[in-house]
């Protein structure tokens, strides 16, 4: 056990029963107080606090990655990785709560003010409450299973299945061969898709699978060549660009340099 781990174990011993419940309640109260203090602070001070917390939070993973590891592939911070992972999951859960609050605020106002389409808002809120209660209180019952399997899943699958019809219609209307590039795209798409399906593969099934130059003419082999030799480098190039862009954005967010509606503008308002 390293010094940080040993200090944390002494400062925060494992709690059970009433003590654990008390500690959880204390944490909730402390969080509420922290949010209230944050709200009361002037914009610039609030921004500084948020920037500092963001930096320290991001610093954990950076340090854990860069600090030299011992023979067991661990360093002084590695012990805390599972706990920090759980904290990020809790934070992720809180964003769900934010979404729910936002839905209640917007659609609740629609219902109360009887705005146009308020019936849809009422149905949305009712469905949300019924599904939440069913999931929390009646998870092992037919009621929940029926709502989940017969209603939610069916709607979800149906919504996605409709896409196939739109794709067919859009391909017929929009896929026009008007240039050399469009022709190349069309031919490549045709070969790749034919090479993926039995009907397409059947067209050249009489050619040898391998061991002969004729095998290069099999549709499944041409399709595979296009995917592995033409598509893969292009994907790699796109991925490389995305990676660099992602790193730049991550650094800007970590160092609180990012500007925009969710960052600078809010702090300047108050």
């Amino acid at each position, binding site marked *: 056990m390293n010094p940080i781990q040993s200090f944390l174990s002494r400062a925060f011993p494992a709690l059970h029963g009433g003590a654990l419940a008390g500690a959880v309640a204390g944490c909730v109260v402390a969080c509420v107080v922290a949010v209230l203090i944050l709200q009361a602070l002037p914009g610039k001070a609030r921004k500084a606090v948020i920037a500092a917390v963001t930096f320290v939070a991001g610093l954990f993973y950076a340090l854990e990655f860069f600090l030299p590891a011992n023979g067991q*592939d*661990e360093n002084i911070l*590695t*012990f805390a*990785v*599972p*706990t*920090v*992972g*759980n*904290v*990020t*999951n809790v*934070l*992720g*859960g809180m964003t*769900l709560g934010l979404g729910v609050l936002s839905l209640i605020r917007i659609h609740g106002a629609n219902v109360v003010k009887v705005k146009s389409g308020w019936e849809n808002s009422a149905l949305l809120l009712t469905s949300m409450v019924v599904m939440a209660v069913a999931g929390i209180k009646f998870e092992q019952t037919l009621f929940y299973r029926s709502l989940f*399997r017969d209603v*939610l*899943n*069916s*709607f*979800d*699958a149906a*919504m*996605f*299945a409709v896409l196939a*019809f739109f*794709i*067919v*219609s859009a*391909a*017929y*209307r929009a*896929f*026009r*061969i008007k240039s050399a590039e469009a022709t190349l795209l*069309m031919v490549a798409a*045709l070969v790749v*898709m*034919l090479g*993926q*399906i*039995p*009907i*397409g*593969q*059947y067209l050249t*099934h009489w050619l040898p*699978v391998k061991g002969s130059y004729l095998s290069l003419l099999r549709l*499944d082999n041409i399709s*595979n060549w296009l*995917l*592995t030799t033409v*598509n*893969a*480098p292009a*994907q*790699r190039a796109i*991925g490389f660009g995305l990676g660099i862009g992602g790193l730049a954005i991550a650094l800007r967010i970590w160092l609180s340099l990012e500007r925009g509606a969710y960052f600078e503008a809010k702090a300047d308002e108050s």
Partner: protein
Amino acid sequence: MSNPGHPLTRINRHWLYGALLAIVVIGLIVPIPLPLAVSPEATRFYEAIESAPKDKLVLVSTLWSASTQGENRPQTQVVLKHLMKRHIRFALIAFGDAQSTTLAQELAEEQARIYKYEYGKDWINLGFRQDIAGTLKGMVRDINETLKTDSVNRRPLAEYPVMAGVRNVKDLSVIAEFSASGNYKSWVGLVVGSTNAAFCYAPTSVMAPELYTYLDSGQIRGMLFGIKGAAEYEQLLGEKGFTTRAITPVSLALVLLFVLIGLGNYGMYATKKMEGNS
């Protein structure tokens, strides 16, 4: 008066919808018994499971909901079937979409009844986690400490025989992800370098072309290319179930797509010709 164009450029969309519906229904009722060439990626996925030692745990990660279950469910099903046939113990985990954990649980229960798999002894559900990066970082160090309890009985993982000898991702033989999303980047970035376990991926068809670069580098051992990959896997298992039958409507729908693109383009050239003549 403007030229309304060749009739082939003006096919009512309802006819297109009707044609697609008819082809899918007919394809499901009357499958065309054509052979399907098994891709090298699917073969490598199969071989990873086939060569997995029986005393090690396989991690099955799912990120799919009802929307992509047409492709992801058969993929998950054939691999679970293979694991159970070989009597390899496995753990389910879900990221990204909360529906995923329930759908995978239902599928595993269905297969477990057939192959007499016992929950807790032969398989376990580690549940749903919102944040994949934080969770994977934790699992690289300690799975029990990161995930703590299962999602069915909410009991500590250490109490289950299926988790015996499993401390972190180094103790896994295969990691198989079934996904409608780009989760593979997190797995490749955070886990693959820390374990010798084979990482296999089963995405939807639309996602699959992205993965060839990782297949090329060997970071992803094998892949199932949408429902076609599932049908190939079923073929490798020596079975002909629903997945194999479902390839017929997929094939026919793609042929319809080519025909319609051809008609649309012929209509465009015919219209240009009409305009040139008038």
